[in-house]
């Protein structure tokens, strides 16, 4: 396979992963429009760094990691801009978000949104995206023990908020 074909092949694999990248981004970033922006930034970065992807690694984990780092950069940039320009806008956003939470208080989505970010990401990668503990720890750049303890705390908090029924135990 020529280099060109290889690149096209990876590009198509990335296209195929876009729905999951959007889902992960929405778990990371609450505003869906922002979420798509982060997906776009992540995909563009990924294409610039295709040579860094080892083909024995999972493409989805690699992209999740780029996406998460892109969002961290974006949050930092916004914090800088907010300090300089619009100190009140941040306050408004928090207000809107809490209203939304109030309205959807009982849904799994809302419970999930209330988790601290580190737990939210662990839960998202393992329970929603189906990554192994090892791959999820790799995406988040933490040891596996840290990942599992975040996952356990996130789960416990969700079960508390949702008071899930016992389920079918037969």
């Amino acid at each position, binding site marked *: 396979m020529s280099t060109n*074909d290889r*690149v*096209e*092949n990876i*590009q*198509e*694999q*990335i*296209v*195929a*992963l*876009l*729905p*999951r990248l*959007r*889902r992960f981004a*929405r*778990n990371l970033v609450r505003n869906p429009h922002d979420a*798509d922006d982060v*997906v*776009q930034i992540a*995909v*563009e970065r990924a*294409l610039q760094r295709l040579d860094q992807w080892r083909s024995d690694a999972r493409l989805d984990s690699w992209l999740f990691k780029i996406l998460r780092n892109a969002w961290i950069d974006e949050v930092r940039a916004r914090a800088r801009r907010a300090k300089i320009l619009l100190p009140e806008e941040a306050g408004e956003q928090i207000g809107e978000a809490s209203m939304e939470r109030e309205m959807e208080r009982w*849904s*799994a*989505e809302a419970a*999930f949104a209330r988790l601290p970010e580190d737990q939210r990401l662990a*839960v*998202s990668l*393992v*329970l*929603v995206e*189906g990554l*192994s*503990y090892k791959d999820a720890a790799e995406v988040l750049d933490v040891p596996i023990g840290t990942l*599992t*303890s975040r*996952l*356990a705390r996130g*789960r*416990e908090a*969700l*079960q508390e908020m*949702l008071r*899930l*029924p*016992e*389920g*079918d*135990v037969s």
Partner: protein
Amino acid sequence: MTMSEETLMAYADGELDAATRASVEAAMQDDPEIRQRVARHRALRESLRGAFSAVLDEPVPDRLIQAARGPAGAAKSTVVALSRAREAREPGNPAAPRRWQPAAMAASLLLGLGLGFLAWHGSGGAMIQPDAGGGLIAGAALAEALSTQLSDDRSAARVAVTGLSFRDKAGDYCRTFSLSGSDASAGLACREGADWRIKALAQSPRAAADAGNFRTAGSEDSAAIRAAVEGSIDGEPLDHAGEIAARAAAWASARKR
């Protein structure tokens, strides 16, 4: 026997080694409380996946698809990925006419939708699954329906509605199908060897409203699928007897190989 929450969690996530897994399963046998704790972990996973799955069925914005295809991607983005994958598999035949061009022109949104299904069913693959060449083929359940079900079958057990059956210009048998429920979509699959290769896939505009209500596919489900059929059909669709004969012959291609 006591079991830590982390162990039960790892069990529910499929992360335990065989020995620990066996000991959890033994404990589950003996202790209803442990069974319940495991069931709770599983229920949480299901409930979260349910809560966040809607985005997978949304069309992916064009700008993201173009971003993924890189700077050169914009010009190519109206071509459905399935036909590109097909060309990639047939390198010896670069001048082959693009039989699926009408489908491609009809709907670049097919792509996002189709690939959404791919991702969603990536683990189960009962309906649609990727093949080694980067294309899509029918998964076990859909392939079974395409191979055995006649278009006028109205039995309740069917998993997919088969619509129109015909031979395409290459001599392969093709069939339209529609899926209901969360998979709601219409598509066209053609028999290639032992597989039903997905040639076009689109979400019906009315799929959501009709989710519980099977209809005959092929004529009205999707303009894109109709265009794909019109672009590839050779002659007339099969009638009932023609379908029975084709099924008896295992949908074998008339293609000269």
